[in-house]
């Protein structure tokens, strides 16, 4: 991929990334909690040429009543739109800390089957007191959290490999549906759990789903895409280099966006912030015109592989992104929409890994 090409991801949760986004969405607040709204935002992103969407989530709602107090589980949302889309990658956030790792791996493998190879996973690390209380547990220490996340990513990846691609043989002559030598236990022992395996779901179409993890989680050696949160482009460049040196295939910058729309972007943000303040979480934030955003993204294309956009208000900022920003980037050769039928790995320029167990066999190792 040429250095100047920038992959575009979009976070699509709720009415927008700004907590007060619902106030400017022009619809009843509860409407976001519907199949229709779920389908509409992803369809808009796909039509705009976005490479993948992420679905943020948490075990507890975003707010207790002032702002959005509800949310449809992310994995279900991603699966729901799988037949309603044909090219965009779908990346739900599933939290390793509040679920069963075996279910998590099965759900994601199933998403990849449901999307014909467009599935991805944003590693969720909910570790607040309220989130952990949903499973009757207390927060983990920083060390224990890192170990737990590493274990869950490792076991998910092992489970996705546990059926070799050619495990199903359907040999009518012998009556054998599968070759049992190609379905492997994973016998995983983590700090806090063990899993025997194999997965109940055959190897997903992409072999391995695309794994996205925030830079701060320290999973660059395990993730395909590291999401870099830093307040300026110089720091982003440094962190991206570090993440790739640590083993990540791709580095994406996190970017919060408010665009001029009738009022100036700054005035829009001020009005939204009057209701609820939008924390920047040390992310890069852009406030201004569409052309200014084109310039910023063009400059970012030299230092990261992609960006994940967090638009303040979907109903307002997404049409501008679709009609002005992405067409300009496409014309300049900085952006390219995914092709129908491509897997997400193909869209991202990532190869399809062979199963670790098949690799063992082909190098003469133990079966």
């Amino acid at each position, binding site marked *: 991929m040429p250095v100047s090409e920038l992959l575009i991801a979009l976070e699509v949760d709720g009415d927008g990334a700004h907590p007060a986004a619902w106030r400017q969405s022009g619809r009843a607040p509860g409407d976001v909690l519907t199949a229709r709204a779920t389908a509409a935002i992803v369809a808009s992103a796909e039509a705009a040429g976005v490479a993948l969407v992420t679905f943020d989530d948490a075990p507890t709602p975003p707010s207790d009543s002032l702002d959005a107090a509800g949310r449809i589980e992310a994995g279900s949302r991603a699966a729901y739109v799988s037949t309603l889309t044909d090219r965009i990658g779908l990346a739900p956030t599933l939290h390793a800390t509040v679920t069963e790792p075996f279910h998590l791996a099965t759900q994601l493998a199933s998403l990849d089957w449901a999307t*014909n190879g467009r599935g991805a996973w944003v590693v969720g690390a909910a570790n607040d007191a309220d989130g952990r209380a949903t499973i*009757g547990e207390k927060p983990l220490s920083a060390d224990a959290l890192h170990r737990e996340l590493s274990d869950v990513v490792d076991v998910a990846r092992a489970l996705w490999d546990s059926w070799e691609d050619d495990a199903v043989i359907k040999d009518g002559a012998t009556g054998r549906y599968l070759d049992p030598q190609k379905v492997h236990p994973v016998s995983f022992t983590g700090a806090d759990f063990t899993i025997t395996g194999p997965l109940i779901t055959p190897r997903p179409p992409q072999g391995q789903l695309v794994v996205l993890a925030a830079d701060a989680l320290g999973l660059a050696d395990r993730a395909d895409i590291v999401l870099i949160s830093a307040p300026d482009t110089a720091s982003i460049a440094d962190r991206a280099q570090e993440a790739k040196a640590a083993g990540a295939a791709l580095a994406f910058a996190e970017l919060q966006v408010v665009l001029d729309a009738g009022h100036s972007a700054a005035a829009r943000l001020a009005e939204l912030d009057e209701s609820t303040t939008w924390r920047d979480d040390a992310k890069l934030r852009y406030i201004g015109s569409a052309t200014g955003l084109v310039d910023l993204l063009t400059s970012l294309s030299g230092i990261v592989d992609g960006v994940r956009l967090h638009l303040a208000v979907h109903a307002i900022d997404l049409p501008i992104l679709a009609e002005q920003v992405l067409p300009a980037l496409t014309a300049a050769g900085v952006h390219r929409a995914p092709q129908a039928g491509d897997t997400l790995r193909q869209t991202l320029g990532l190869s399809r890994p062979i199963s670790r167990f098949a690799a063992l066999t082909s190098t003469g190792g133990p079966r």
Partner: protein
Amino acid sequence: MTASSGSEDSGIDTGAPYDHDAHVHLGVFYSGVGPQVIWTDPSAAPQMPRETFINVAQLLERGLFDAFFLGEGLRVRESKGRAFDLDVAGRPDAITQLSMLAGATQRIGLVATQNATYNFPADLARRLASLDILSDGRAGWNVVTTDNAWTGENFRHGGWLDHERRYERATQMVQAAKALWASWDDNAAADSPAAKSWARPGSIETVERSTDLVSLRAPGTLPPSRQGRPVLFQSGDSAGGRELAAQHADVVFSANGPFEKAVVYARDLRQRLAAHGRGPNSVRILPGASVILGDTEQDAKDKAEWVRDLQLSGPRAIAFFEQYWGSDLSAYDPDGPLPAIEPVQGELDPSRGTISIADRTGKMDRIREWRRRSDEDGLSMLQLFREATARQSAFVGTPAQIADQWARYVRTGAADGFNISPHLVPSSLSDIVDTLVPALQDRGVYRTAYEGTTLREHLALTPLNR
């Protein structure tokens, strides 16, 4: 059986009055795996591609079915320490797959079999509620339990729950799920973006439980769906399972298919319902069934033979006895006698998958009996295997014959319909949609169009009180 037998049938005591206007409710229990699924026939659809599931769900929707069920198995079956190779294996996560199907269908109910032993309550309740919202009120949860430690080896707790306590945990899980699903007041979310706050303060409850089996503190994250909450299905036949059904279920997926057994079961369940203050019509009873249709009775019987030969094959007979002998019998001929060698002592190894409670003890007694039958009656291993393998009640006949039988079940109250396990996908289901459904409609015992939009409405259950 003809419709004129109704007057005699009105004396059958199922705990419900005879109802000539009763309707048959149909679901399909799509396990997708196991020995009943024929994969060797060229017409068999491949197991994993999404098109297989979409085509089946859309076919059933054309047949005006109430529900499409996905089964669950949380560990790949094994034999001799490795994956069992003769049956279809490998399947998708139920809620994920049904969420996909919610986007590819309009009306049919979508029911996920989900384990109450190896799930966290708030996590599972939330995923089920999400399916219910995304399908606009078409979701169901078929509550099952697992007590074998072999399955537990894939989960955080391991094999943690004693057999006696699995329904205690399931009941607490269901209660917690119901509380979470009821945690939003009606119209908790504001009706305008100009409102002061997104939700009315105090309109959303946090659910807390703290027992040795269920521990959580979680706010509800979703409003009620169009049907209120997911429909609850229960399929265990133990006393604990029946009690859970009587207290909480909307539908039982019963193992009691033959008419006389169905009558006895229905009476028992309705007595239990009454003890919990619930009416005789508050739960739908759908026995599991397989259906083999033919143009003539003989044609159907021939087809049933063909199906049985493929399902209960020679290699599966060998695998069956290998479990009992505890050794490799692949050198033996399934059409020959039982092996002369002695089986290893000890009870069955559960690693093949689910071993029923009844089969967990008494292995050597059963082997002695098979030896006697083999010696005295000259039965082959294959014949013994076919005798020994308990079969789900099969309805074999012409569409008219089966339609008459089913009309009798629903009019007497012995059942409200059936949950069908397909043996060959998709043809065993398209046969039903194309020939049996019209025969049921001719008899006035099946809908001619969906009247409602939700699963609860399809099942003609009373609306929930909120």
